[in-house]
């Protein structure tokens, strides 16, 4: 996000007049509401806010937000957003993408966008499936996913978007899911981060991948299956009866039982959002064996690309006058005089 004057708006101010066209029950509705509810809390100005998207179900998002919006082409939203931010760094830019758009066809742009660190929020809706093209498996689909293109089950291993983002050099990594009441807080943290803030949002595709994440998003299992991370607080779950600690012999995270709330006694880790190594371990925790790490996993800002580049350009311009006539006549020139039609002098 950018430094800005807070504007007073309500949820209504962020709803466009367009009919929302996602399938009934789609997780996208909940994410849309969470965003529209959070924007007023951020004091965001609809005139200075731009939602940029690629192609896919998630990428219809900009049409439904009453700000500026650009629905671009498949996978390329980060590249459009880069030009947008370089041309006007004052704009508050949100990228909306999916696992197919951002990790498959647009993986290259996502990588370079994160590496460059363009100040913006990237919301990657991960539903582990291609929705708009009718249910083909995606790069995040789990092994064995049966789909029209993999009728015998997929054989390639899925990627972890957050691990990819960290590998690309992202300075902010967070996770949430569509129906979570904490999603607003995650979005706020992403917005507060100066630089490219990568947020993976697990999203339920009701038609092609129904309840794919129910094993950790359902209320009934929330305590044991969700680990909500908070900077400076111990990594506890299951009502504080379990926690994560670092096995220093084998350098991996492990679950420990906490007795009587004495987490220090068993060495439960305190979450440090600036610890990149632990962030790597958290995003790669096997879902079947561990609770899912959610919330702000990593947050350690670095100067943004646009501030560096435009700053460098400003220095290069210092003391120079843009004189087109001089530029055109640069280098060695000669003059042809009217009287002789021949060269007289080299300049």
């Amino acid at each position, binding site marked *: 996000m950018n430094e800005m004057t807070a504007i007073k708006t309500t949820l209504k101010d962020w709803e466009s007049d367009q009919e929302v066209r996602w399938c009934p029950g789609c997780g996208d509705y909940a994410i849309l509401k969470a965003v529209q509810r959070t924007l007023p809390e951020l004091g965001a100005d609809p005139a200075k806010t731009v939602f940029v998207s690629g192609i896919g179900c998630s990428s219809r998002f*900009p049409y439904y937000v009453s700000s500026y919006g*650009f629905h*671009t082409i498949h996978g390329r939203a980060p590249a*459009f957003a880069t030009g947008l931010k370089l041309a006007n760094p004052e704009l508050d830019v949100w990228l909306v993408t999916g696992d197919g758009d951002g990790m498959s066809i647009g993986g290259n742009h996502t990588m370079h966008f994160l590496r460059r660190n363009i100040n913006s929020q990237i919301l990657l809706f991960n539903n582990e499936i291609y929705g708009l093209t009718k249910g083909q498996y995606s790069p995040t689909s789990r092994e064995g996913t049966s789909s029209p293109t993999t009728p015998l089950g997929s054989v390639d291993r899925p990627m972890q978007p957050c691990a990819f983002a960290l590998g690309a050099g992202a300075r902010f990594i967070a996770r949430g899911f569509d129906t979570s009441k904490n999603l607003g807080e995650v979005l706020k943290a992403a917005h507060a981060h100066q630089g490219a803030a990568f947020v993976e949002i697990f999203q339920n595709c009701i038609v092609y991948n129904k309840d794919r994440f129910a094993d950790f998003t359902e209320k009934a299992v929330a305590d044991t299956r969700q680990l909500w991370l908070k900077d400076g607080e111990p990594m506890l779950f299951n009502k504080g009866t379990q926690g994560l600690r670092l096995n220093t012999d084998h350098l991996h995270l492990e679950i420990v039982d906490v007795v009587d709330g004495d987490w220090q006694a068993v060495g439960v880790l305190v979450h440090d959002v600036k610890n990149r190594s632990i962030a790597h371990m958290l995003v790669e925790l096997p879902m079947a064996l561990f609770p899912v790490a959610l919330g702000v996993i990593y947050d350690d800002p670095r100067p943004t690309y646009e501030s560096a580049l435009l700053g460098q*350009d400003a220095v290069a311009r210092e003391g120079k006058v843009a004189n*087109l006539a001089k530029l055109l006549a640069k280098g*060695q020139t000669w003059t042809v005089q009217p009287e002789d039609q021949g060269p007289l002098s080299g300049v």
Partner: protein
Amino acid sequence: MATVLEAGANEGRSTDNTPEAVVVRFAGDSGDGMQLTGGQFTLSTALAGNDLATFPDFPAEIRAPQGTLFGVSAFQINFGSTEISTAGDQPDVLVAMNPAALKTNVGQLKAGGLIIADSGEFNKRNLEKAKYESNPLEDGSLAKWNLLAFDISKLTMESVKPFGLGNKEALRCKNMWTLGLALWMFDRPRQPLIDWLNTKFAKNKVLADANIAALNAGHAYGETAEIGGQVKKLHIEAAPQTPGLYRTITGADAISLGLIAGAQLAELPLFFGGYPITPASAILHNLAKLKEFGVTTFQAEDEIAAVASAIGASYAGSLGVTSSSGPGIALKTEAIGLAVMTELPLVIVNSQRGGPSTGLPTKTEQSDLYQAVYGRNGDTPLPVIAARSPADAFDCAIEACRLAVQFMTPVMLLTDGYIGNAAEPWKVPDPESFTPFPAKFLEENNNPDGKVLPYKRDENGVRPWIKPGTPDLMHRIGGIEKAPDTGDLDYSPATHQLQTDARKAKVDGIANHIPAQEVSQGTQSGKLALVGWGSTYGAIHQAVRRARAKGLDVSHIHIRHIWPMPANLGDLLRGYDKIIVPEMNTGQLKTVLRDQYLVDARPLNKVSGQPFTIAEIEAAIEAALA
């Protein structure tokens, strides 16, 4: 059907020491500094007031293996006291720095032409690499030319001896020695070269002095009696030129300057998104150095990101520009379609090279015309402009910016490797003489009774440009079909019909906002018209000039606006009995002309990676009028 050249077909120069025009070709190993030699000779020629045209011809490999046939790099310059518009057909003088350079270039040398060869390089190893069975300098196989062979390597080594350079470094001065000889032959001043060397090697005085010594030694070699009577000092009179201030300019430089001028005339910051590709990279290099002109340059991760970032910048209110050559343009195509659909300004420069696929990266061709005019999914029209020469590329770049901004459309500017690398004298224009075309942004709601209408068209079918950040004008744009006026998502049959028609009508209508087609040489009707576009201009122009001098009824029409074409072009073409379209492709403009005007346009094609020669086109004219 490319015409076969007859040996010695060239005319137009007398045999005394003041010829009208001379073609010199420097050829050597790609590491021999031939492009540098050629470039500096060009500069001294321009300073001597000659009109000139150049043709750099180099391999795709940066440092091809030494002495090999495919590693030969050549630079041709045509200069003279009359108007010059091509790099010349056949060289009068060939400077061959090794056997491979001789072998690959001597075939084109005019009968009776002069060969200057570095005999020091004609050793067994180099002869084998060039696949010579015997030494051509000694076996009489070069009898039809004048041969002047001496040990340039040794002479260079001697001239730089006092500076204590290593062998390798000393031999690097060979190109300066050769240049010194060439400058003497054509009576060119040495001082600009000496100044240039002093600047280039400002940090290494020894290298500067050694190179200057080599240059002077080459010059002195020509002047002293050491060489026989074959090398006559040739003085070319200055060509008559319109009075004014001149410089030399390459196409790549001209486009860079034209884009900067265009952005200034539009009163917009310039955003250039590019990705390295031969032969288009030079534009990105140039603009990256000109930040004070409000330029932002961005080297993207790929061609798609380059164009997408430019469109993103245009959306934000800058003038977005991207450039590439054919393969890169292919990658950008989907995004260009989005710019057509969302109706945002964008300039796309295509420095064409031989295709398909990677094709001939460093050789020239005009085979991307179909790609420019037709090469997108859907009915996706956009204006296409083609530059004819380095100097013309400047005006074309401004014109591309104008159309993009005034009509809210991507514009394709076609140039080619030949124009990009070639140099010609350029009368420096006065910026005061340009007509500004300031961009207008919508800042107040154009629909006071309701929400803003981002797709409400004006009398030219143009929608308003609205910058994100403008209060109260929030709206969404995208690649999905949209309702008129509101731009709301709408892919009903009637809407798609209406919007497709509207986008087409807007681009078609540009025909009324471009200059009428003129006949560049000849008459408004007649027996034969040669219709060309792009860099074939020079060869066609000279061929028509010669044919007309012989009394033949032939005219030359050169088309700059490829799409839409000037409104009067159809009527004009119908005034000729025959039409020939010379192109460095298999007949692309020919197809468009036939399609648009139902005229019997006949192709004259060449796709060898080399420009047309004047003689080839002249022969086609004579055959058509026989």
